[in-house]
């Protein structure tokens, strides 16, 4: 291979019990070598393995902050997840070799040794006859990953490995991220041909790019089309033109024209992966069922059939996504109930029941006592808002953002007046939102509104947006500030977290506000609760 190896390691080099053999591949973030075990493996280690050398040493020229982060992602995932369709990691080692500064300090992942990658296989033989069976296993691997609460983030042929027995493993988890609710944050890297249109040139925050499992579903659709037809689904001679085509398709100015060579059974599958928006995309479990139906359950080992199709969701949130600005209170509240009751949460997007049919009485619990164990029922919190308040608090994984805090803030902000209108201060609605600020929190998926919204802001919109903002503020407040953290969060909502950090507590101007929030916080908290 003419390309220089990211981490050159001489043949015969010893790391732990391993002796390095021939190079296998080099990627953006490290190099992989075959290795054989020299000692006895204690019954745990195989005779051969693939060693992935990652340049983390102090003297390596690539000692870069973000590389370290990418490596940590992969190690973290492989340590925690052992699944049949994910590449197995046996151990991690650190090179201790002061004589070779390029290698000293490098992290070594000892991985299952594969025969090759799907990328190499396709180069040798486009449209392999085993294509459908391979795809069924790739899909099973994705389902295993998503069930465990992770997103791959960079699914493509080079990251699909083929084992000696013909089975498939997903690998290269540098971009993988653990879901936080409906999203995960990945480093801002991607492979253009496999990137869904909503992530092309998407906004990037300080934590990286927000992606959903549906990004992997799009990538699977591209991969399936490529494996089965030998061509990409979107037209163009180069990745850049195909990226433009994806953008044009997503904007609705162009149709999806799949290759006529695509077998009928796969046409609908690929189409359901390659939808214009993430919301229309098929869920991973439904996808797996359709792929298995198309291939006759080709995935032998570790298949996904018969398993409860329930995506593990670390935090229940996002139940009212796509609620939209125009959703009326009743509809939005009803979907919140569905989330709260923990319905089979597989595909949020798409097959949510018709909000128009909902009547706001979505559960058996009467509104007046909803969430009674967390929010007192006898202190004047209007019954109409209890559900929204309680479920909004539950949408945030931060314990500080509790039902009593939200209720106390609404009491102080507006006395629960949904029609509040204060043009002098430019604040409107039950949560006293300033339109230009609400814009950044109005959508459940974290995207800003297209334009600055105009009042009125109904409670079904104001309260969840408030919860999202509070949830965002919480980790940004300095640790160790004096006083009740919940009150500091409330004050940050009124002013900004930066001012509260600067003042190292409640700024004098907001003491009265803070005292009132604290008063109602105490009043609304049930006895025995903090």
């Amino acid at each position, binding site marked *: 291979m003419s390309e220089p190896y990211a981490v050159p390691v001489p043949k015969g080099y010893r790391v732990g019990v391993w002796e390095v053999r021939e190079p296998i591949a080099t*990627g953006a973030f490290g190099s992989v070598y075959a290795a054989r075990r020299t000692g006895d493996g204690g019954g745990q280690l195989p005779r051969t393995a693939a060693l992935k050398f990652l340049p983390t040493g102090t003297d390596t020229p690539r000692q870069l902050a973000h590389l370290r982060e990418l490596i940590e992602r992969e190690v973290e995932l492989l340590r925690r997840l052992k699944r049949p369709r994910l590449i197995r990691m046996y151990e991690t080692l650190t090179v201790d070799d002061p004589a070779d500064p390029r290698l000293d300090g490098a992290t070594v992942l000892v991985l299952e040794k594969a025969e090759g*990658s799907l*990328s190499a296989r396709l180069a040798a033989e486009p449209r392999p006859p085993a294509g459908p069976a391979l795809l069924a296993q790739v899909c099973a691997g994705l389902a295993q990953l998503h069930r465990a609460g992770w997103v791959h983030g960079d699914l493509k042929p080079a990251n699909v490995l083929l084992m000696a027995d013909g089975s498939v493993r997903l690998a290269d988890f540098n971009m993988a991220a653990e879901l936080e609710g409906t999203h995960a944050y990945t480093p801002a890297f991607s492979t253009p041909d496999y990137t869904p249109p909503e992530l092309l*040139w998407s906004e990037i925050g300080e934590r990286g790019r927000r992606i959903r499992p549906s990004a992997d579903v799009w990538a699977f659709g591209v991969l399936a089309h490529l494996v089965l037809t030998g061509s990409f689904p979107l037209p163009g001679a180069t990745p850049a033109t195909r990226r433009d085509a994806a953008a044009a398709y997503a904007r609705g100015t162009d149709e999806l024209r799949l290759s006529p060579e695509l077998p009928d059974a796969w046409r609908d599958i690929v189409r359901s992966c390659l939808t214009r928006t993430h919301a229309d995309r098929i869920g991973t479990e439904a996808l797996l069922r359709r792929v298995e139906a198309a291939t006759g359950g080709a995935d032998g080992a570790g298949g996904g059939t018969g398993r409860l199709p329930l995506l593990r969701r670390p935090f229940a949130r996002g139940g009212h996504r796509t609620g939209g600005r125009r959703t009326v209170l009743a509809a939005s509240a009803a979907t919140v109930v569905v989330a709260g009751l923990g319905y089979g949460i597989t595909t949020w997007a798409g097959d949510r029941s018709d909000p128009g049919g909902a009547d706001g009485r979505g559960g058996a619990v009467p509104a007046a006592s909803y969430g009674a164990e967390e929010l007192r029922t006898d202190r004047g919190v209007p019954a109409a808002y209890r559900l929204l308040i309680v479920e909004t608090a539950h949408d945030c994984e931060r314990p500080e953002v509790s039902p009593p805090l939200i209720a106390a803030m609404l009491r102080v902000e507006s006395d629960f007046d949904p029609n509040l209108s204060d043009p002098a201060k430019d604040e409107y609605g039950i949560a006293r939102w300033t339109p230009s600020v609400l814009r*950044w929190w109005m959508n459940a998926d974290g995207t800003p509104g297209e334009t600055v919204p105009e009042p009125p802001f109904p409670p079904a919109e104001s309260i969840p947006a408030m919860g999202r903002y509070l949830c965002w503020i919480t980790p940004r407040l300095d640790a160790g500030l004096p006083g009740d953290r919940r009150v500091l969060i409330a004050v940050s909502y009124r002013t900004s977290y930066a001012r509260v950090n600067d003042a190292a507590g409640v700024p004098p101007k907001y003491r009265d506000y803070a005292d009132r929030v604290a008063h109602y916080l105490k009043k609304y908290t049930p006895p025995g609760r903090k």
Partner: protein
Amino acid sequence: MYSIIVVPPPTTEDERSRTQLRLAPGERLVFGRSVPAGGLLIEHDGVSRRAGEITAHGTFWALSNLSGHQTYVVENPEGAGEHIKVAPGRLEAPVPFEFSRIVLPAAGDLLPVEVWAPRHDYLRAEDGADGEPTAPAFSVDRTKRYFAVLAALCEPRLRGAPHAPLPTMDQVVERLRPTWPAASRTSVQWNIDYLAVKLRLKPGPETAEPGPRLNGKKESLVSLALRFDLVREDDLVILTEPSGQAHR
């Protein structure tokens, strides 16, 4: 999903707040004195009724000269006179610059239409060999002014003080002056605003209001740049040596 930004010529009324038109790949923008709805109206008697059309692609754009007899010049404002000419009747001439200024000759006046192409791709040293490279979501041109501005902003933290306060606008101007004598607060601010567009900075609620809260934007830019190694310590040499490009 826009990839090209068009900034119309300044008019006397909105000299300060020039609107930006964002085009997605495949979108077209007709400009001229009398254009259909959705086009860019340039109210000047010296401009043709349908003067031209901009077609957005992902990383570049193309200019069609629809006028009868005027040649349009597309300049690279940071390119030391680098420019291309688009003759009357030429359709879809591709423009390779990241920053461009279309100069429309109009009865003695020259009207500038600025077009930015912030999605240019650049090679990264880490690109591997197996299959398609995994590309960073943003790539920057280290010879551009915006990169010098970013480097100056990041400098204190790259020099080993991770929590150092960011340089003020005046300090940035001072720092850049040896290699960029014409630097001013306005031009530095322009570059900061452009960087926020180019790096697709998610605007936080702190920057929801335009105006004095620039610090949030600078702070976010610096933390993004340092986190993804867009500027490294080695890059700081551009603050002391010209980056190879000539000056305006």
